[in-house]
């Protein structure tokens, strides 16, 4: 196991939410960062200071506040670009990862050289979050293209045995998760991207669960598009990112249209700005961008390698602790190899809702249900599961509390 250089006590002191108590005056044990992370005071301060000092509409007007807001917004873009190893013009701010993926799916059904046509194919996987699944179903419905998908092995890995035959000359895009929100599985995206590019297909990675938790370099991954949300990486709600290679963004028609994204508007028709502004209509979410920039600073200060090592250590502990409990079945890889810190499991004889309710009573927040990955649960032959997901502020004691909580639930319901 790698050495962890992360002062968890110091990190926890930065998160006001972790100081509160929950039901029965229990301290909060927050194991639901896969759904949304808690926010450090640095991010909250950045948003507040933006509203207090720089609240003007970015990219319009001539007054000082507007100029400062523009600087904040574009400064955030530069910071995100550096975080990803991308050029600043390749970072599009969206509402969230879901909107970023929809942007690409919409652009591919619009006019231009990227247009998907009847007979074309889109390849996805059974492991996807609905956000990287439903937009592609809809794209195929709009265009007459065919949706195909890679299946999942019983261990929760992508079945890549047929990758070469699944990517055909007709495949226009391969959309794959960079880290499963259910099993934590990290598919070999770079390998998939190489195979896709050999056949002339584009590649989109859903990085909602990877960018917050591991170092991500878009060039090393070799992807054409990558999407994630700020709120899962210590940042605010309401802002997300689409990375797109410059020449692709340039070839894409706009998605949402209106102010800010136009070049010239006449009653007869309009022309549009170059990317990334082409894809950012309306007054920009400046305070949210400031919060995202502060989150990037916070993660950079910790070091993404340290973040990943800390989570790997917690995940290893959780896998060991859960394996020891009779009647608990872990969905997905049972080692930390190519696996992030989301651990979903079944407790025999107890529905996940009931497991979650008992844990909540103990102050432990987990996710229950299908986690927006219904087909993956179907592939595992389960209706729903309970998920614990870890982040920078979680401790080994909290992992032990989870295991104790599961045993308590088993006693309460007379199972196990």
């Amino acid at each position: 196991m790698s050495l962890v250089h992360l002062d968890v006590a110091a990190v926890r002191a930065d998160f006001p939410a972790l100081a509160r108590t929950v039901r029965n005056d229990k301290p909060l044990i927050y194991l639901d960062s896969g759904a949304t992370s808690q926010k450090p005071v640095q991010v909250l301060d950045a948003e507040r200071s933006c509203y207090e000092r720089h609240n003007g509409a970015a990219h319009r007007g001539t007054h000082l506040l507007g100029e400062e807001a523009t600087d904040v917004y574009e400064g955030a873009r530069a910071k995100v670009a550096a975080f990803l190893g991308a050029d600043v013009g390749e970072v599009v701010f969206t509402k969230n990862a879901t909107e970023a993926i929809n942007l690409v799916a919409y652009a591919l059904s619009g006019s231009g050289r990227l247009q998907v046509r009847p007979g074309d194919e889109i390849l996805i996987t059974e492991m996807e979050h609905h956000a990287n699944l439903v937009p592609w179903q809809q794209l195929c419905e709009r265009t007459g293209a065919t949706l195909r998908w890679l299946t999942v092995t019983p261990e929760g890995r992508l079945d890549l045995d047929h990758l070469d035959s699944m990517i055909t000359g007709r495949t226009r895009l391969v959309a794959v998760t960079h880290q499963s929100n259910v099993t934590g599985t990290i598919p070999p995206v770079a390998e998939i991207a190489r195979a896709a590019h050999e056949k002339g297909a584009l590649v989109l990675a859903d990085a909602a669960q990877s960018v917050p938790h591991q170092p991500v370099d878009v060039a090393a991954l070799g992807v054409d598009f990558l999407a994630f949300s700020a709120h899962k990486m210590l940042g605010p709600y309401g802002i997300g990112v689409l990375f797109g290679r410059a020449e692709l963004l340039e070839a894409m028609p706009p998605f949402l249209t209106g102010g800010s994204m136009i070049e010239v508007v006449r009653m007869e028709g309009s022309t549009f700005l170059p990317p990334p502004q082409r894809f950012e209509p309306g007054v920009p979410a400046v305070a949210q961008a400031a919060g995202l920039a502060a989150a990037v600073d916070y993660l950079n200060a910790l070091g993404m390698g340290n973040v990943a090592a800390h989570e790997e250590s917690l995940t290893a502990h959780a896998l060991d602790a859960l394996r020891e409990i009779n009647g608990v079945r872990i969905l997905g890889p049972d080692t930390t190899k190519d696996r992030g810190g989301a651990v979903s499991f079944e407790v025999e004889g107890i529905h996940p809702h009931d497991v979650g309710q008992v844990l909540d009573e103990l102050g432990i927040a987990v996710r229950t249900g299908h986690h927006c990955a219904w087909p993956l649960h179907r592939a595992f032959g389960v209706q729903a599961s309970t998920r614990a997901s870890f982040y920078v502020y979680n401790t080994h004691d909290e992992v032990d509390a989870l295991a104790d909580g599961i045993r308590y639930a088993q006693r309460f319901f007379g199972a196990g």
Partner: protein
Amino acid sequence: MQLQSMYQDIILDHYRNPHHKGLRDPFDAEVHHVNPVCGDEVTLRVALKDVGGEAVVEDVSYDSLGCSISQASASVMSDLVIGRPVGEAMTISQAFLELMQSKGEGEPDEDVLEDAVAFVGVSKYPARIKCALLGWMAWKDATARAMEGTQ
């Protein structure tokens, strides 16, 4: 610990030994309802009969997958509505809905709701109200369809 107030023994008993479970013939309408948050689902059938010009619930049968609350609630619901005139059963259904919307403050009438009074604790947990209502909503839907079919 408030767990016991939510998971009262009545609820756990119905969960472990659900009443009227399993799909039966004949039936007048069948519906399939899901809770999209968790994937819990119920397939429910209603058979009505005409008693002196009044529609009476002759049978409710169901097949379901779900948590203790949704399973127990469907079981309690079937006890409450089978054998009753549809109008009366709808009144009970309304009383149960109001109980679920009471945020734990409801004072349910045991003469009306019988075992269903045990769900008052559930109404404190917004995330679980849908679980408790899944079977009831399916029954209302199926009954409305059956009534249309008989008109």
